[in-house]
């Protein structure tokens, strides 16, 4: 084991500074505040402050905000209810109830898919664990609310809320259904599409 | 080199299949002789003759018989007349010449091992041969060679035939037994070996038609005379079926140790239409291929073939001329084994499918160069890993062609990649 020497400030700084030094620090700080305030008042500099919520703020598309479930080409939920997101989730906020899909080519799908958003830590592990690109964290960040029951997002909400403008198709289409029946889909569709 | 005629001694005779003809040529003399001997002496006699199984594996016949427990009350003798190996057409020729030869051989063999019942397992496609065989069995019954107390002795024996549906795997010893039992034709796990627990879980000997057909001759003329033919370790003669673009294709009886080159050029008359020799498959589709250079060095016996890393197999010599695409040949071979794999053992079931799959990719020129190495790796891991030898039978020719003709396959793939 090595020893790291750390330079500490001298303990015996002069007594005045030790007693009254904060005043100069405040003055220094206020000086900067005043400078920027004046600049912005005189419109010499653009203000970074937004008049939120009247003024909307846009985040990066890669922002990990509110979850959504992607759709198959026909608008059905992409999720196969494999529970891998629920397994990966450190906050245990994902509840899935799987069921038998009437279409044998899909076989398994989530009857219920719920996220308790109050427990979610937005780590994005669910997104990474998903083998079929069914769950993603979107750029929506406004999640404030007042009614208790809305904190658990249902499958329907995650799949197609107004903000999603009809839902988002998965980038994975080729394995949509069992290839014995459904021939491999064309490559052109093989990209993320936001429906308008 | 002298070419004694043992199995083919009836060739060219008028009405060779009839009992009269057979009797006129010392037919059933061996049976008289054999019934005067003790079964154990008979087994020693066959052991002394050095006769080896003619079906493909070349296992010493006398040794096989000696594995059968003496005291078992119920034993079976089965004749493997399935002849499924591509390129082979010798067993049906025996039935065509003289089915009595087989019947007599079976009676003597059954007496030696103590079997009371025997079946001749034939593929149903041989419908003419089946009719001739049936007639011979009827004649033998009528004249007291079959049935109760044969020729006045205490030995009683019944012979019947069974028609298989023609699956390649039913030519395998235990696959044949499964099929005969009325089950799906799948080889059985060994041990226990059929000599201890075979047909209906009773001791069973399965011999090839040709093996059984030479037994009367050996018994009649003595093992020394048989041993004088052929080589030290591979005595006797064998039927060879030559096919491909030679001038005189067909079945030839040759002493073992006969040079392959000589066989192709002298006996079969060489290649026709001025073709040159590219390669030879010496023992049916499952035998690894020999290049033209190797052909000159080998002789037709078990040891020489083993030294050349191939096998005598059923004696089906397939001649491949220059200009024949090895890609096509390998594709057909692999497809055959893929189609015929019974699907029981995983390496064979999946391996044959995989090889066929890769081979189709190569054939359609949708493959990579390293696919040739992949095929060799697959073949290496299929060999010796399964219950029966079908997996080996697919792996060995694949590896031989992919190794010896790898460049041809690679250039075939490349031509495709360049358009």
């Amino acid at each position, binding site marked *: 084991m090595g020893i790291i020497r750390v330079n500490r400030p001298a303990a015996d700084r002069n007594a005045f500074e030790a007693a009254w030094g904060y005043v100069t620090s405040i003055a220094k700080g206020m000086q900067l505040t005043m400078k920027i305030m004046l600049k912005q008042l005189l419109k010499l500099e653009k203000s970074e402050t937004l008049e939120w919520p009247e003024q909307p703020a846009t985040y990066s598309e890669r922002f990990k905000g509110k979850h959504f479930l992607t759709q198959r080409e026909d608008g059905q939920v992409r999720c196969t209810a494999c529970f891998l997101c629920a397994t990966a989730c450190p906050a245990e906020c994902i509840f899935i109830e799987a069921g038998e899909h009437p279409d*044998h080519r899909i076989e398994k799908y989530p009857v219920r898919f719920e996220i308790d958003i109050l427990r979610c830590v937005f780590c994005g592990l669910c997104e990474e664990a998903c083998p079929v690109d069914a769950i993603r964290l979107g750029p929506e960040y406004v999640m404030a609310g007042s009614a208790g029951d809305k904190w658990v997002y249902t499958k329907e909400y995650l799949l197609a809320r107004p903000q999603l403008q009809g839902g988002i198709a998965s980038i994975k289409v080729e394995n949509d259904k069992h290839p*014995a029946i459904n021939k491999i889909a064309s490559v052109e569709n093989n990209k993320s599409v936001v429906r308008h | 080199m002298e070419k004694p005629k043992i199995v083919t001694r009836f060739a060219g005779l008028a009405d060779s299949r009839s009992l009269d003809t057979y009797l006129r040529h010392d037919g059933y003399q061996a049976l008289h002789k054999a019934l005067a001997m003790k079964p154990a002496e008979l087994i020693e006699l066959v052991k002394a003759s050095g006769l080896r199984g003619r079906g493909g594996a070349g296992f010493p016949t006398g040794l096989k018989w000696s594995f059968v427990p003496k005291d078992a009350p119920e034993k079976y003798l089965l004749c493997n007349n399935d002849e499924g190996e591509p390129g082979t057409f010798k067993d049906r020729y025996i039935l065509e010449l003289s089915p009595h030869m087989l019947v007599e051989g079976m009676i003597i063999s059954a007496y030696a091992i103590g079997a009371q019942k025997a079946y001749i397992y034939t593929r149903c496609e041989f419908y003419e041969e089946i009719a001739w065989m049936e007639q011979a069995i009827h004649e033998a019954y009528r004249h007291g060679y079959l049935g109760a107390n044969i020729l006045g002795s205490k030995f009683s024996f019944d012979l019947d035939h069974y028609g298989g549906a023609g699956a390649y*795997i039913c030519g395998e010893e235990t696959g044949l037994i499964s099929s005969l039992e009325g089950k799906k034709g799948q080889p059985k*796990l060994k041990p226990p070996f059929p000599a201890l627990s075979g047909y209906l879980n009773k001791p069973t000997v399965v011999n090839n038609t040709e093996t059984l057909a030479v037994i009367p001759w050996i018994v009649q003329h003595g093992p020394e005379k048989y041993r004088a033919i052929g080589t030290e370790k591979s005595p006797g003669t064998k039927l060879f079926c030559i096919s491909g673009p030679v001038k005189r294709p067909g079945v030839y009886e040759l002493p073992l140790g006969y040079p392959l080159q000589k066989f192709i050029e002298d006996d079969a008359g060489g290649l026709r239409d001025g073709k040159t020799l590219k390669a030879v498959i010496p023992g049916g589709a499952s035998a690894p291929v020999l290049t033209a250079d190797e052909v000159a060095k080998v002789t037709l016996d078990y040891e020489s073939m083993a030294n050349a890393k191939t096998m005598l197999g059923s004696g089906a010599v397939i001649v491949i001329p220059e200009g024949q695409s090895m890609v096509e040949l390998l594709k057909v071979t692999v497809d055959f084994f893929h189609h015929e*794999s019974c*699907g029981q053992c995983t*390496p064979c079931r999946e391996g044959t499918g995989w090889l066929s799959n890769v081979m*189709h990719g190569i054939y359609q020129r949708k493959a990579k160069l390293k696919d040739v190495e992949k095929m060799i790796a697959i073949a290496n891991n299929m060999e010796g890993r*399964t219950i029966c030898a079908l997996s080996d039978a697919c792996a060995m020719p694949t590896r031989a062609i992919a190794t010896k003709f790898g460049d041809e396959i690679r250039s075939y793939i490349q031509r495709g990649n360049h358009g």
Partner: protein
Amino acid sequence: MSKQVSFTLDGQEVTVPQGWTVMQAARQEKVAIPHFCWHPGLKVAGVCRFCLVHVEGARKLEISCNLVVQPGMVVSTLRDEVKQAHKWALEFHLLNHPLDCPICDQAGECGLQDYYMEVGLYQSQMTRPKVLKPKALDVGSELVLDTERCILCSKCVRFEDEVTKTGALGIFARGDRSIIGTYHGQKITHQYQENLVDICPVGAFTSRRFRFKQRVWFLKEKSSICPGCSTGCAIKVHGKPEMRRYFRVKPEEDQSVNGHWLCDKGRMTLEHLNPEARLMQAARWQAAQQAWEFSPQTAPFIRELAQEIARLAPQDIALLVSAQYTNEEYAEFFDYFVKQRGITQVYQWREPSEARDDFDGLLLRGDHNANTRGLMAALKQVGIKAKIGDQLEKCVAAKPQLVIALSPEISFTAPSLPEQLAQLNSLARVSLWTTHFSASQWTQLWQLLPLRGFAEKIGTVTNYQGKTRVLKEAFPPVASEVLAISQIIAGLHKEL
């Protein structure tokens, strides 16, 4: 004792009985040899060719499942060629496997997954399309068959041939087109269907009852004893304690009783553990409202019961006991009520129509009570002479002032339970101690006390052979208001 043979396995000297295979010896020595088609309860098939080992002097690798131990044999499972062979064997198995693990119930306990992590870990070389086969086939009331996931180990076929002797399954076609199936669209109808799910090393057979309910890695398992009949099969109950739910019952290997198997009825006992079928809180019948009144407080109920016991003379009180509780529970129950309180009227509560001596030839017995012998022994212990048989009518006819009843736990063992309960209605006060409850069928009993289910208690039962079967581990009860019999008796002690 049979003759012993010694040989060397991975450098260790191992001694096993003569005739054992290397696989059996390795299993005893806890040497892991990967395998798919071998099962200790079935004949050797030797078809997966996975369990290859190296034998000194042998020309090629041998399969250990069919290799009988010879004295002095030197076997290795650790050589590179063996590991390489295992890797290839796995690659062959996975070649045409669809890899639909996300929707496969076997994921998490799948042989292919486990061995891939253990001996595989290769990059797949398969670049061509896979063979496609039919999926999600209905082959039986408890089974769903996916022929594409199947690796054709033939264990299910052998189970049908050797264990149930129904021969309902076969392998059709050949080569890599082979598929497992039933004959001519027939279905498997026997009582042992879910064993096929257990022995299937992959997800080809999945259980209809468990299908898609839960992923297996969430489940905890506890060893217990099946309460379905007097055989007393060793089982493992799989549940998710944090959800307070149970998901499946699997057999536990026990050569002395059930071998490797468990009947479907035994698996059905699970339904009596989940909250829907359970009495979760104590209840009393409110005649005015014609409804049950449930209460999270059990103490007042026990107090009421204690007051009744104190008020009445012992001869006015009767005990009505079913044979589905543990020996320890009986001991405590009778010790308190018979010995200490002097109650002498003890009646057995059984299914009147039961065919007690029936046996299906494999596991399931006609006596659907797990502890008939234990109950008789407990009665004898406290000096009560009794013959096995239903005495409910006798109890009703005796018109006791108070009946303390231990209800049967598993409803399929007591089909006439509703009628029997209706008979009890004529009595003044019945304190029914029960695990399950059906609001639509049950009326008018004085009080109901909730008991723990079989997976929530430890103890012993005595099976038909007289063997003591141990319920080894317990889940926490589905609700905190659910009581053990000892807790109720302790409560009574306190009150009296």
